[in-house]
């Protein structure tokens, strides 16, 4: 599924990712934890194809396909979805309009016909209902004036609508209240399946109580410095990153 080999990424002439290797098999959920500034969001943006994130060495493939040679839109169409740590506000574009345009663009790139309006609305209602979102929110400018937690929920709404092959969730739990965390986690769990893999970036073990990862990785100093089972998250919660930061330095 996702295979990252010896990845090096430079942002604004600063080396941030420095030799990162990670394998995420199909159907698995891996958590990435690590101190602030370790490069977690940088990794997400790099995989999603944001301009300014320059890969100087290494490779990243999705199902054997070279991700790095695709532009951001093509990667999305290939099934890469990033739930942003800080989702953008897009005034004047209702969430429904936005998601429908995105869905149709992805279908078009695969040679599929556009989704018809009633089917789309029906699905949107179902998904919004399962995430306990007020449907009217989807008619307002995307994320405009939404609270931090509402924005995160909107990201998961989009993920559920777009059904990606690879979902990268960058701190989707931050900003969510206790109830919202459960609802969002259920939404994410509902999307788990043999054809979908997820990278869940988080600072808190709590999220991993709801979304049980197959593996947990520690990202420090721009590389994966430790990997283990779900128990690794508990250990980190107890002991912090001290020993890994030293290992990374």
């Amino acid at each position: 599924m996702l295979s990252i080999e010896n990845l090096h990424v430079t942002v604004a002439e600063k080396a941030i990712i420095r030799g990162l290797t990670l394998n995420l098999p199909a159907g698995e959920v891996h958590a990435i934890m690590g101190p602030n500034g370790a490069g977690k969001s940088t990794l997400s943006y790099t995989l999603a194809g944001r301009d300014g994130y320059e890969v100087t060495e290494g490779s990243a493939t999705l199902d054997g396909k070279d991700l790095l040679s695709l532009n951001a839109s093509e990667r999305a169409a290939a099934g890469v979805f990033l739930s942003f740590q800080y989702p953008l506000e897009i005034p004047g574009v209702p969430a429904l309009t936005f998601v429908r345009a995105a869905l149709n663009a992805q279908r078009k790139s695969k040679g599929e016909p556009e989704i018809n309006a009633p089917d789309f609305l029906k699905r949107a209602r179902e998904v919004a209902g399962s995430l306990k979102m007020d449907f009217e929110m989807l008619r307002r400018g995307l994320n405009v004036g939404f609270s931090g937690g509402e924005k995160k929920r909107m990201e998961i709404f989009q993920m559920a609508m777009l059904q990606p092959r690879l979902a990268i969730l960058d701190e989707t739990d931050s900003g969510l209240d206790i109830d919202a965390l459960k609802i969002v986690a259920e939404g994410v769990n509902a999307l788990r399946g043999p054809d979908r893999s997820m990278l869940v970036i988080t600072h808190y073990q709590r999220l991993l109580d709801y979304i049980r990862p197959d593996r947990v990785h520690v990202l420090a100093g721009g590389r994966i410095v430790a990997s283990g089972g779900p128990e690794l998250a508990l250990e980190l919660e107890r002991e912090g990153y001290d020993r890994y930061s030293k290992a990374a330095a």
Partner: protein
Amino acid sequence: MSLTAAIRSRDVSALPSRRDEGWRWSELASVVRSAPPLAGTITVAPGGGPFAEVKADEERVFANGQGDASPLVVEAGRTVKLRFVTRADAAASLSAVSILVKAGGSLTLLESYEGEGEAYVADAALDIRLEDGARMERIVVAEDAETAVSVSTAQVTLAPGADYAQAVFATGARRQRIETRIQHPGAGAALRMDGVYLVGQRRHADLTTAVVHAGVDGTTSQMIKGVAAGHGRGVFQGLIRVEHGADRTDARMRHDALLLSDTAEVDAKPELEIFADDVSCAHGNTVGALDDAALFYARQRGLPLHEARVLLTEAFVGAVVERIAHPGAREVVAALVPRRLEGLTC
């Protein structure tokens, strides 16, 4: 000197040049070097133009400058189409009309500039008066040929309690200028003065407005959005003058423009001249590129770059479209904007 006066007198030497302050970005002297002949007679079938689908009580057509030039007087509620149609090459189309909305009357004016041909020169002069408590919404769609010179000037005079709103959609020409000068008495009169220019290729669009608040308790709200691509050039000149004693005036002006290419240009001169003490006035002016972060966000969801740009640009312009009160006209403009943007954002 107006274009019409210059062409009628066959003396273009006094046309505005770069040295005329109000015309320095849109001078006419270099683009109208000699007086063109008047354009010949054409027949224009009724029911066309950008507002074809909108129901109206009356349609007035100026075809190559010829049409019913009697004053348009509105006493009750009316929707009127005013079409300035030019089909000419290297010839002039000169039109003038006056409009009077009587006390208690209400007019929706669907005004269109429909130009086809090469290097024509079009000039339209409107004199608009609103009596006490009269209402008017003017929606202007200006679509001229790329090689044309097209100027429209409206002189608007409001009486106390009048409510006047306009929204102009301009797509440029070799020179295209839509100018509105408003005499605002205050006294509870309300003014909305919006506009959009969308210019690509080598097109040039100029939205110029001047409002004079002469008395107390008047409001003005202005939202102009511009998009310039290719070698397009957008000009906004907005003046709001609040005369001595015009207290409790509330005036807001915003001009925001997007540059979609390195070779596009936007020139803006927003001005507030305030001579009264107790007023609430604000203006804002920005010129910039599309937000990279928003573009990436849209692309991350799968929109190709071109589509993402169209979507964001349409949303940017949409804020003006939403302010159109007449539902039919709003729909027409909402449909027109993406068609024009499609060509601009390639």
